């Protein structure tokens, strides 16, 4: 087995030495000192950072700061301190740099304290524990879907329907209990289904962030478990024309992905105008487990997006459009018509195993019936205005359409074969969201924002059956919020907020017997609050804590489901009297970023009253497909607790050890038992060796990692057809480097997952009933940044 690792290493070494010339390393340091321009005295607690990177720090009492592990390149460097004008300058880093800068006292607002924090609309609630994936760590996930990429963050698991459909799970909560913000807009697809993956192309993002706690205070309904932020880079400000190409190939499933981005900004009369276009093409064939191929597990994705922005110092407007299209094959033998067949399928040691010639003759990439297609469009228009005394006002409007079609394995029976290619289910969801946020200027060391938002949705179901899994519905919702922060010193932030929400929903249904239409209407309101604090002991060490509440209105599926849920063989019955889910969340974490040790340790507790779940009724429904056990949506009080531990130990200049743990414990308080489909504990560790320079290569790394997932033993009795699968241990390895082909810079890496080709099943994957998880895969990832017109450093924008 270690032969494979050796192969991977050799492959990496073969790929990398093609490289030539210049240095591009992520081991550089940028240090310096910052003083007051009036008297030259050092300034402490100046926030410094490189824009669009995670590199940031505060100056110490001597006014000094240090940013380590910086990649070579040109950055916008920002330094800000209360009462001083923000410094914003371009810095080109090719070797370890030391700089000395001075801040101008802010004469206009000398008596007012001006805190330049991150923009509130992106930050949400600052005191809730938040983790990010960006830069090289994000690069290593390129080609994966959003859910799988987010799994790199502690506290995040995935719930899957096969390897191609995965949804993020934050602290044990998923689907409608977490919110995904796609470029600032709440993603509205058909989240109620566990086999409905988020309709987002991860390539649009240069940063994926996860807010690990209840954030309803800022985002309203659904943000009970947390929020995923898919954030593109800021639009370029200085005249340029640049971009990046990403290529990913994988042996298992023969996946290939190509993604490109091109952006530019103009100068002279067009200063402030910028654009970005982006597109991704992704295709994969049948996945391979260690012992067999999974028939019809291919995928096809074609996504594109474009942004046009016009931004001046005090106002700006931008428009963003994105289109996401995917086609996903559903593993042929995962379709059981009834529970008896499901148990039969699970009893099989393996699904039908065809010879390779079968796949070659039918075509590896062809997707047959038993598939779903999703087309998601998003249009967002955003405008802001700033005024010295008043603050900043920002308005955002977005329209989304989500069209999902589900084609069952069974071809519909129809007269003249007219419906041979028809989908059994069509869901069409149209969402409009709007938001108006006012960030007021700091007043008596208090800064904050107030805002109003609204959402309206319309869902249309059409299908071949009489029975809609979810009914047609219309809803309107709105909220008002106020979030304020008090910064008495640079060391301490106290944050508090309140929000009030209202939601109206009406469903349109047919009486199945009389076929007469009828409607039902619900109204919900909720008040949420948050209180949190951050204390920065030193620039390296900080502690945050937050107590907040969240809420979620029951989904139309939970209210009105009536029928067999294909993926699980359950006859699901909704309850139109379900109440609002209410969560009370507490989270706290310690961040330490020293030279030897970087650590992020968080614990949380989340009490959810009226938690909605499927309860077995021990009765059966009979239809022409057979017998189905009935599960009813019911409410209980649930308690989630756990910890996220993330450590990075720089043992030597070259060697780093990085252990991580994601621990989740969930209990049903009302029935004194556990809850189903809660992720098992997960432990990761990685040992990495890095050379800043190795021969002609730069920033070379080799790492080996493993993931340990014990069996989930905390499950309620008699709640599942089969017990949770055994625990497993997986190994992975990667090599990578930066290099130049001629003058062209590029990053190359080779990653091997499931190195030992272990056959295993995962509790959080519905495929565990039928088949093993994918076996060994080797991925090649190439990133090629390019600049046709480089931003010039003499255009420094020092305001």
């Amino acid at each position, binding site marked *: 087995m270690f032969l494979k690792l050796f192969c991977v290493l050799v492959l990496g070494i073969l790929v990398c030495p093609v490289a030539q010339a210049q240095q591009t390393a992520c081991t550089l340091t940028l240090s310096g000192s910052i003083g007051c321009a009036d008297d030259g005295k050092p300034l402490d607690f100046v926030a410094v950072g490189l824009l669009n990177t995670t590199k940031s720090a505060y100056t110490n009492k001597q006014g000094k700061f240090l940013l380590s592990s910086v990649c070579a390149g040109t950055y916008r460097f920002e330094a800000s301190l209360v009462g001083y004008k923000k410094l914003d300058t371009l810095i080109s880093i090719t070797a370890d740099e030391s700089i000395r800068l001075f801040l101008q006292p802010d004469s206009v607002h000398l008596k007012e304290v001006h805190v330049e924090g991150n923009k509130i609309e992106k930050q949400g609630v600052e005191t809730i524990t938040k983790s990010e994936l960006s830069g090289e760590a994000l690069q290593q996930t390129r080609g994966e879907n959003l859910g799988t990429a987010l799994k790199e963050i502690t506290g995040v698991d995935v719930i899957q329907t096969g390897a191609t459909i995965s949804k993020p799970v934050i602290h044990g909560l998923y689907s409608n209990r977490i919110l995904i913000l796609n470029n600032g807009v709440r993603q509205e697809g058909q989240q109620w289904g566990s086999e409905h993956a988020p309709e987002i192309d991860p390539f649009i993002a240069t940063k994926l962030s996860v807010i690990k706690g209840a954030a309803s205070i800022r985002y309203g309904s659904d943000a009970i478990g947390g929020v995923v932020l898919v954030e593109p880079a800021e639009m370029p400000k200085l005249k340029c024309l640049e971009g990046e190409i990403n290529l990913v190939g994988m042996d298992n499933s023969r996946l290939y992905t190509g993604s490109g981005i091109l952006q530019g900004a103009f100068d002279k009369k067009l200063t402030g105008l910028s654009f970005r276009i982006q597109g991704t093409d992704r295709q994969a064939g049948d996945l391979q487990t260690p012992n067999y191929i999974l028939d019809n597990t291919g995928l096809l994705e074609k996504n594109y997006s474009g942004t046009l922005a016009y931004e001046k110092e005090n106002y700006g407007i931008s428009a963003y459009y994105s289109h996401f299209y995917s086609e996903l094959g559903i593993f042929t033998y995962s379709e059981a018509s009834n529970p008896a067949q499901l148990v039969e399928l699970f009893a099989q040691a393996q699904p039908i195993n065809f010879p390779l010639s079968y796949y070659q003759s039918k075509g590896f990439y062809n997707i047959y019936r038993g598939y779903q297609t999703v087309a998601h469009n998003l249009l967002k228009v955003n405008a802001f205005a700033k005024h010295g005394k008043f603050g900043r006002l920002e308005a955002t*409007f977005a329209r989304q359409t989500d069209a999902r079609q589900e084609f069952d394995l069974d071809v519909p029976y129809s007269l003249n074969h007219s419906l041979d290619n028809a989908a059994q289910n069509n869901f069409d969801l149209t969402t409009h969201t709007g938001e108006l946020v006012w960030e007021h200027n700091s007043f008596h060391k208090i800064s904050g924002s107030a805002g109003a938002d609204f959402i309206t949705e319309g869902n249309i179901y059409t299908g071949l059956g*009489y029975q809609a899994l979810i009914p047609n519905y219309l809803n309107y919702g709105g909220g008002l919020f106020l979030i304020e922060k008090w910064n008495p010193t640079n060391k301490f932030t106290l944050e508090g907020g309140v929000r009030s929400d209202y939601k109206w929903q009406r469903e349109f249904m047919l009486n199945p017997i009389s076929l007469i239409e009828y409607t039902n209407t619900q109204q919900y309101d909720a008040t949420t609050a948050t209180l949190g604090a951050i204390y920065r002991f030193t620039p390296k060490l900080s502690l945050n804590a937050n107590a907040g509440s969240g809420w979620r209105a029951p989904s139309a599926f939970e209210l009105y489901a009536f029928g067999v849920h294909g993926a699980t063989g359950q006859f699901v019955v909704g309850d139109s009297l379900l109440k609002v889910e209410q969560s009370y969340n507490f989270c706290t974490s310690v961040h330490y970023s020293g030279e030897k040790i970087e650590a992020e340790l968080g614990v949380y507790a989340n009490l959810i009253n009226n938690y909605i779940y499927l309860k077995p009724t021990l009765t059966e429904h009979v239809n022409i497909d057979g017998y189905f056990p009935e599960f009813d949506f019911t409410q209980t009080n649930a308690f989630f607790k756990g910890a996220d531990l993330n450590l990075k130990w720089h043992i030597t200049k070259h060697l780093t050890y990085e252990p991580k743990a994601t621990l989740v414990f969930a209990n049903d308080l009302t029935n004194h038992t556990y809850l189903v489909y809660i992720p098992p504990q997960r432990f990761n560790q990685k040992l990495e060796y890095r050379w800043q320079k190795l021969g002609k290569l730069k920033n070379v790394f080799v790492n080996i990692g493993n993931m340990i997932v014990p069996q989930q033993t905390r499950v309620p009795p008699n709640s599942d057809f089969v017990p949770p699968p055994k625990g497993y241990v997986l190994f992975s390895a990667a090599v990578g480097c930066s290099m130049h082909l001629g003058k062209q810079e590029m990053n190359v890496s080779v990653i091997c997952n499931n190195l030992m080709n272990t056959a295993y099943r995962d509790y959080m994957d519905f495929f565990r009933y039928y088949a093993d998880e994918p076996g060994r895969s080797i991925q090649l990832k190439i990133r090629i940044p390019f600049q046709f017109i480089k931003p010039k450093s003499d255009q420094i924008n020092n305001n």
Partner: protein
Amino acid sequence: MKMRMFKIAGLASIAITATVLGITSCSKPETVVSPPVPGNEFLTTVAFRCINTAAPFDTTTAIWRNLNPNGTQAPDTSEAILNFKKNSNYVCWVYIFDESQTTKFGTTNLGAELQPNFNINNLPSTTVNVTTEIRQRQNYHLFCFNMTGGIATNLSVTRTDYDTNTPSLQVGLNDNVTTINVSTGRMEVALHHQPNVKNGSCSPGSDDFDIFYGVTIQ
């Protein structure tokens, strides 16, 4: 200047909000519940009809039906009973019908249609015969029979028709039933849907239907 810009942005945001309200207050297709796509056929009724090869007037027909395919009502199994004579041979046919449209127009009398002078071409106009389509798709369909209770050892079903796969495989729309001793029990009839994977065995694929008949051998 700044103030003016701010006013413009403020007006713009109001305009956006107004547009939004305008869009959302237009026509609402959500309020109309779409009926099932026309032309789709539901499998609501499975009939099993047998004739004694030695006594042509000894026929038995069992009908299993669930006219509300959405599952709101339990299936009607009052006619889902087969009566055989012991030590006999029967030639049998499976019929599949869509009677879902009949719910709108009152009940049909398909049971009577199947009694003794059954004519497949003489169905009520609202009843669709899906059997012919299953015959057209025979290359990926297989009927499976499973006996439980006393008939488990006293009744056997043999499929007698073949598809056009290479090699040719059984289908099961036409069958022979052989009985031995007096007994009772249940016969499960399942139509397996096996695109690309039909191999003569019942395991692969999903079910188009899976129903039970009561059986008495006298």
